[in-house]
């Protein structure tokens, strides 16, 4: 996969995996939108980036589905931000998406890795 340029990752793949990324990132604790952006960029080593115009609609969609919940929080010395946390329903979806993703990656690996074996 090295020769696939990061920015050229297929739109659909990115869209499908984006939900998984967000759900995973808010699993341990509630995070706000900008934080999510920075985390995705940092942890993917700059391979994955989100623009605000893509991230927020995704957050709202997940929220509409009841998988995450946004709440305005005012922390001492900071400005008010909207924090998203995983809901019980979202946790269920995350678990199932994770296993699907693993199966998918395993399958791909078995196919693509077979020639190296």
């Amino acid at each position, binding site marked *: 996969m090295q020769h696939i340029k990061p920015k050229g990752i297929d739109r659909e793949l990115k869209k499908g995996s984006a939900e998984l990324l967000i759900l995973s990132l808010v699993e341990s604790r509630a995070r706000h939108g900008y934080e999510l952006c920075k985390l995705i960029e940092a942890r993917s080593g700059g391979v994955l980036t989100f623009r605000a115009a893509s991230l927020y*609609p995704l957050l709202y969609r997940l929220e509409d589905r009841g998988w995450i919940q946004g709440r305005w929080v005012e922390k001492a010395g900071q400005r008010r931000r909207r924090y998203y946390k995983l809901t019980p329903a979202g946790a269920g979806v995350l678990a199932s998406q994770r296993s699907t993703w693993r199966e998918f990656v395993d399958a791909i690996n078995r196919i693509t890795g077979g020639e190296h074996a």
Partner: protein
Amino acid sequence: MRDFKDVVRRTLVRRNLPAARETEIVEELSEHLEDRYRELRARGTPEDRADREVLAELDATDLTAYVARLPSAPGPVPIGGGSRASIAGGLLQDLRFGARLIARERGAACVVVATLSLAIAANTIVFAFADLLLLRPLPLANIDRLVAVYSIQAQNTDRQPDSIPDFVDMRSATQTLERMSAMTRQPVSMTGAGEPRAINAAYVTANHFRVWGVSTVLGRGFLDGEDAHGHEGVAVLSHHFWKTQFNGAESAIREAVTLNGRSYAVVGVLTPAIEIGNISQTDVWVPLEIDASARRDELSLAVFALRKPSASLEATQAEFRALAEGLQKEHPATNAGRQYRVLSGRDATVGGSTWIILALLAVVVGLVLVVACANVATVVLSRASARHQEIAVRIALGATRARLVRQFVVENLLLGIASGAVGLLLAYGGLSAFKALSTESYFQFLQINANLLAFVVALSIAAPVVFGVGPALQASKPDLNEDLKGGGRDGAASVRGGRSRSILVVAQVAFALAVLVASGLIVRSVVALEHVPLGLDAADMLTMRVRFDPPGYTADAQRFRTIESILDRLSAAPGVAAASASRHLPIIDGEPSRRFAIAGQPLPEAKDLPWAFEAAVAGEYARAAGVGLLDGRLWRPEDRASGWGVAVVNREAARRYWPARSPIGEHVTMTDADGRPTGDPLTIVGVIDNVIAAPEAPPPPRIYRPLAVRPMASVVFLIRTAGDPGVAGPALRSAVREENRDLAVSDLRPFSDQIASELRTQNLIMAMFAAFAAIGFVVAIAGIYGVTAFAVTQRRREISVRLALGASAAGMARLVMGRSLRLIVIGAALGLGGAAALGSAMRSVLFGVPATDPLTYAIVVAVFTIGGLTATYVPARRVTSFDPAAVLKRE
């Protein structure tokens, strides 16, 4: 750094998102962009490049695609005219938007629906009465030309029946009426068909049904000549009597009924449509034989007539005024002061005081409706104030004022329809309860019909629309500069709205207070009526009526022997402490008023002779009725020897006619209306305590005479029971049975029940006034609460600033309360003025309480003070929980 909020807003603005959602998205996204910009700048990116990169963050279809799917709120606003289709579509959109807003602001909607539905229910109930009494067509074919002729005495306007000779004179003299009929009702004994029983007969002239224009469902009415002397007896049955007595069999018209021993051939059955009001109590109709030699001072006939098509009601009235004057001159002893009153058939079916009560109820519920509508207008204004920013945005986007007003009106319409539906249900419940509690058969005809439904629909549409347009016009005229700046919560719009709200609160308090005072006066009147001392002991007293009709009883001596024998049997019956017989049931039945001359006093003119109600009693009357014998005695067996030439007078007669001395031993002679003696002098042997004749009048003078002198066909037995009156009942019935199996016994029941049912209608009317007043009060208090609570919310920034500057919370609460209380005081002052006007208008229906009754006023003012203080204190107290720092930061 540029204003990213503005950038985001411009990206979203064409989408018309719901305001709250848009605000959130704008805030969240703009923060993100600001964070990004700061970060880029911190890394050393030049300003213009950072700016470009940040703007690129928004450059994606995802956001617009997402936003496009969100439900858009205030809809695309049509600018300018628009086709008919788009107007209809817009209306549908208004409806949808209105419904959504109402669902969102459930609290306010509930307040509006609750208050408005109560007011609509109250108005609907009163309208149901008006519908029954005034609007519904009477089942009389000739109603347009039908008139009723009453006698009235100059000094009061009570409608009285006419005398038979007067009727004969009217009938021969009138030029404006073409047919006159007369009716008199009388209970009779029916025998020959199972148990003997007392039934109600109406004696009518042969043309009566044709004058009324009522038809028979079976057979025929009376033919001319059937009311002539010596004609064989014929009878027409009422529909309900035919159903119960003859099982509705068509063969009934070949049968006969025996009334007071005389046989009447049944010739027809009357339509059931006629069975309204007290006419429904009539079981059988028989011809009335007009005896021109009857007494002119006995008023017994209800007279009806048909106006000639050429004569107006006014012409008839004028004719009968002249006629009355002629008869006054001709028969001064009987007709002095007697006038005739000609009423249209419609007016005749509604009692005189019914009009006043109905009008008063209409005023009261009308005021309640005004209070409720003022409340609705307050809520609308408050919501409009809270929405002024939304309205300003919509106007800036090109919405016309008409379009905004339409939106408001549509919202109110939805609330009105919901209130109408709830109100109809409440009215149905109220009417059902009234019917269940009322003893008047007429009120059983109260119903929810097309008239009523139309009224409710009209009210639920008109009230909210009319009261919504004013606030809507005001709200749709915002100060764009102020309102668009945002944060203008204390701005000009709410000041303007505040003034209107203040006026509405003042109006609510004023109207509700007037309603409360008027209803309070009615309640006090009815309570006073109930507490009028009767003069006798109604507890543990049973009464029953027994008829001594022909053919079994034709002679007075024979009747009296039977009465004495029954009294003996009753006195010996178990559970009976004392038994007596009377010609009339005290208080409930009217007694005849008689004139008399006092021996040894100069004889005045006939019209100035002393008068008294004449009662005729036998047995232990004083003990049985529980009336104190103040002096002397009642009848003794020895009085029989003197031909019963004895009498007892009551305390009032003694006070009036024998002031400062005892009447015992005095002699009086009963006279006719012309002052001619009608019998031998009577010796007064006792003085008995007063018994009232009607709750609303002081006890009249009364003269008691032995029943033996002139026993009537109908006698009432009064029995004081020693224990449970329920136990004595069967014993009384069997005592009469043992005497004669053919005697018709009726109305065996406790006297207290009969007094209570006399007052039942008044109690129901009182309950209605009280309920309507309570509704008015609750609605007004809800209005005061709403306005104060709204003021606290609107002024929280101002209050917070003051609190931050060191003002005390208690002081702020006082400030808020003070403003509301000032409005209440102004409203109360106006309301007291209105109440005084209303009170003086209703003076004629008040009893035992002056129109300016200080207690009523004091209670109403106290109730309002407590209610008003509570309604302002509860919301004002919220001020003390304000955290000025938090409020100011948020704003």
